[in-house]
């Protein structure tokens, strides 16, 4: 009895509440969003969610020593997969992202996000003394470690995921205790590098996306069409929305492929500003609570692990919503727990599993 109660007390209540709430909203919304989609999408999302919950529990129960030991081999393995996928991967929509077996496929780029979280936690927690003695070595190593897979992902090409890996790795970098001057240098070099990439390194379609983001009126039916229609959907929801299952932009198919990248537009159209603020507040609570768990964690590895997860959630949510509401160019970044798709669901669930894992061990040591 007391064992059960002790186990129960290990489960983070507020975290569970907000995760369950967001999953519920996400499924409610996806039911509406997939009504005009090919059959079976909603049930397959239910299936992924179920698998995701199992994955979450599994990850939460993992021994942290095992996680530490997995960090390097995991990173090297996934980097290998990323290299391999460029050669033997399935081409979907013009980019090579998938290993496919029939209808089942995995994206190693999704695994790389988790792998980077794990590796960052491991790298920056393994030897604090050595790190304070030779901060430059750690900093440069870390940047070398994330840039290689990020470039491989960019090669697929998958700008969204590459961008996310970079932001994730940089967030971890800025959150770990390295000297401020090193962070300053990296910031300077990083910003100039980003400028050069945008100026010279983008593919034609990526430039075009960027351009139509800046001037959407130039091409109302081409690249900017989705973004414009998403704005119509969101704005037309007004304060309280058009009502569940009554979004015309959604149900009359003016929002193409809205279940993956644009589910927020569906939500905004049917639930209005109130619904949007509710969802936004839920996500914010989730992220702040994750930060809170990190702050409460007295173990460096656990704290950095959770920080990585917080960064993953933050960037996914903010970039996805920003692109849907027309504040960022359209790059393929999904909305955690709301977007359709196995890869997205499993990645987020695994990351949440890590958060639970750390949260449950807050009484140890």
């Amino acid at each position: 009895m007391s064992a059960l109660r002790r186990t129960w007390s290990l489960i983070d209540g507020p975290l569970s509440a907000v995760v369950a709430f967001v999953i519920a909203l996400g499924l409610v919304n996806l039911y509406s969003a997939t009504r005009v989609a090919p059959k079976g999408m909603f049930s397959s999302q239910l299936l992924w969610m179920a698998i995701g919950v199992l994955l979450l529990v599994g990850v939460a129960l993992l021994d942290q020593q095992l996680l530490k030991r997995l960090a390097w081999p995991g990173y090297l393995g996934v980097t290998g997969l990323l290299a391999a996928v460029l050669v033997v991967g399935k081409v979907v929509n013009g980019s090579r992202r998938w290993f496919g077996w029939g209808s089942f496929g995995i994206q190693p780029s999704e695994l790389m996000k988790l792998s980077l979280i794990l590796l960052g936690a491991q790298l920056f927690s393994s030897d604090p003394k050595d790190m304070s003695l030779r901060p430059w070595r750690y900093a440069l190593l870390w940047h070398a470690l994330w840039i290689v897979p990020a470039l491989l992902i960019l090669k697929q090409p998958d700008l969204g995921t590459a961008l996310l890996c970079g932001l994730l790795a940089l967030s971890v970098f800025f959150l770990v205790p390295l000297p401020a001057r090193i962070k300053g240098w990296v910031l300077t070099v990083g910003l100039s590098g980003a400028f050069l990439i945008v100026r010279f390194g983008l593919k034609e379609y990526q430039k075009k996306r960027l351009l139509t983001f800046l001037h959407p009126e130039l091409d109302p039916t081409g690249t900017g069409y989705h973004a414009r229609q998403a704005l119509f959907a969101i704005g037309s929801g007004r304060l309280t929305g058009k009502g569940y299952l009554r979004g015309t932009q959604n149900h009359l198919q003016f929002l193409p492929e809205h279940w993956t990248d644009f589910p927020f537009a569906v939500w905004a159209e049917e639930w209005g500003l109130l619904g949007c603020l509710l969802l936004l507040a839920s996500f914010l609570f989730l992220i702040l609570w994750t930060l809170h768990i990190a702050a409460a964690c007295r173990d460096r590895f656990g704290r950095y692990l959770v920080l990585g997860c917080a960064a993953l959630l933050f960037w996914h949510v903010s970039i996805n919503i920003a692109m849907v509401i027309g504040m960022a160019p359209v790059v393929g970044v999904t909305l955690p727990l709301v977007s359709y798709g196995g890869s997205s669901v499993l990645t987020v669930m695994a990351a949440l599993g890590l958060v639970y894992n750390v949260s449950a061990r807050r009484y140890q040591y």
Partner: protein
Amino acid sequence: MRLFRRRKLHFDLRIGLQTSLAPSGGAAGEPTTASLRVPLPLRVAALIAVSAFLVLAGRLIQLQALRGDDYLQKSTSNFIRERELAAVRGQIRDRSGAVLADNRPTFHVYATPRYVSEATLLRLGRLLKLSEEQREALGKKLQSKRGADASKQLLVAEDISRDQLAALESEKDQLPGIDMEARTRRVYPQKNTAAHLLGYLNLAGPDDLKRGYKHGDSVGRSGMEQRLESKLRGSPGFERFFVDAHGRRKSENELGEMAQLAPQEMRRDPQPGLTAVLTIDLELQRIVEDALSRHASAAAAVVEVESGKVLAMASYPSPDPNLLGGRLSRAEAQRMESDPFRPLLDKVLRETYYPGSTFKIIPALAALEEGLIDPDQKQVCHGRYELGRHVFRCMKAHGPVSLHEALAQSCNVYFYHLAEKVGLERMARWAERFGFGQPMALGLGEASGFVPTLEYYRQHGGFRGGYALNTALGQGAVRASVLQLAMAYAALGNGGKLYQPMLVDRLEKPSGEPVEQFSPQLRAQLPILPSSLERMRRALVDVVADNKGTASTAFIEGLDIAGKSGTAQVRKNRRGESSGWDEKNDHAWFVGYAPSRNAKIAVAVLVEHGGLGGHVAAPTATKIIQGYFDRVSPEHKPRPVAEATSSKLSTTLPASAGAR
């Protein structure tokens, strides 16, 4: 709104605060033994997250709360398509109801480029029996439309057959982006008859689009179609319907509650245009056109003397208005443009000519009314008249002639003497009274003609005596239209009432319910003594009835006509000048009214390069008058025997009647 926003802010800050103070706040309220300082980066991270979400929330407020109505309208116009329901154009009818301009249903095919796939194009090509080249050209045209243009309907085929329509309707489901639209097409059942008067339509151009017309609308371009455009047009209605993003039509059931977002008014019926009933008599119009068709190029007008109503108005040759308005091939159009007989020109209204001797009534009346001559005093005509170094000629030496004989036999020399007495200014004043050189305000692009004054000649190289002589004979600078002459002679025949020519009798709803009835408009009651008019009448009767009259060859037993022939000199003169398409023959005129007493109609006939008016134009005019009394209005036909003899007897006037 503001309240809500502030509350959210507090909520956010509290969470942020709690996070930054996390150790003491403690997860699940557990007491913590060791106090762990919350690292600065975490606090910054929390702050960044909160700020980023506040920015997102701000943008959402902008989109949904501030611009929401605008976006709602945009999203609504996404799925509500509006289709214009064209109004049926009003008919044009003759005075007894015969249809002159009508409408016929026709179907056009439209394509919306965005929705038309290659497969659809192939199917469409098969159903419309397009050749491979036509289909490919169409495909290219559709593909070339980008952006907003790709959502606009494009006319693919016009006036398709019933069979094609049925075929398209049956495969409508497999033709996304293809629409058939019912339109009407203007038809003129009488073909060439009254073509100039009716006018024609063609497609709205850029200027019309600015005035509220839409692509594919037809606009009246000339004649009554243009003049009455606003009455005939009606006002279009609309039909609204639901579509999805692929242009597929959705029923209200399929939309369910989403349909509530639609505007209240889903359909407005078009208001058909009004029917215009003209004063024209189709039977008489046919008689006139048949009479004119004996000539190469001619024009005629028949007006009701006591009202100014135009009963017939024709310009020959005339085009078939069914073929005008963009349906002619380029070659045919060019041929018509360059035809010397000018079939596209309305010679009754839009062209002016020298009135020639038909103008002599003006100096004659001016002289009589102002007491400048004794009409019975004879002038001797030797066939020539000298003024300074100039010699003015007559057709022959008429010998001694009075005014009566001078008019009946059209002696120029008599009128040279008369013109010197009357002078240019008086002639100009009297011409103006009879409407010459004055606009007619019909709105049909009619010409005003011209009557010279001393002022005019002073500004154009100075006045010389010969100009008054020329003017008296309707030459020189005098120009008049056929209808102006008809109206002037009508005034002569009705006791001096100059009417505004009237072409539209009334406007009706398609049901026949009257909307507007027009009445004759008197322009002026001319101050002419009845005795002068009677003197003119007798002289004009003898033009035809007397053996010596210029138009005696046109005399028809039993017809009582008062008229004047004219020969407008346009052939090559001694100086080698000529105008028009024939340098050997002058324009032939005959203008008159009938019966000579209690006149019913006035007729003006012009035959371009017909030769002598009395020989060419007069028989055409008498044929028209005969047709009117035989076939159009037999009840007004004068009793032949009595009238004919009386007119023969009354050719010499008692001296007392003319004394002033």
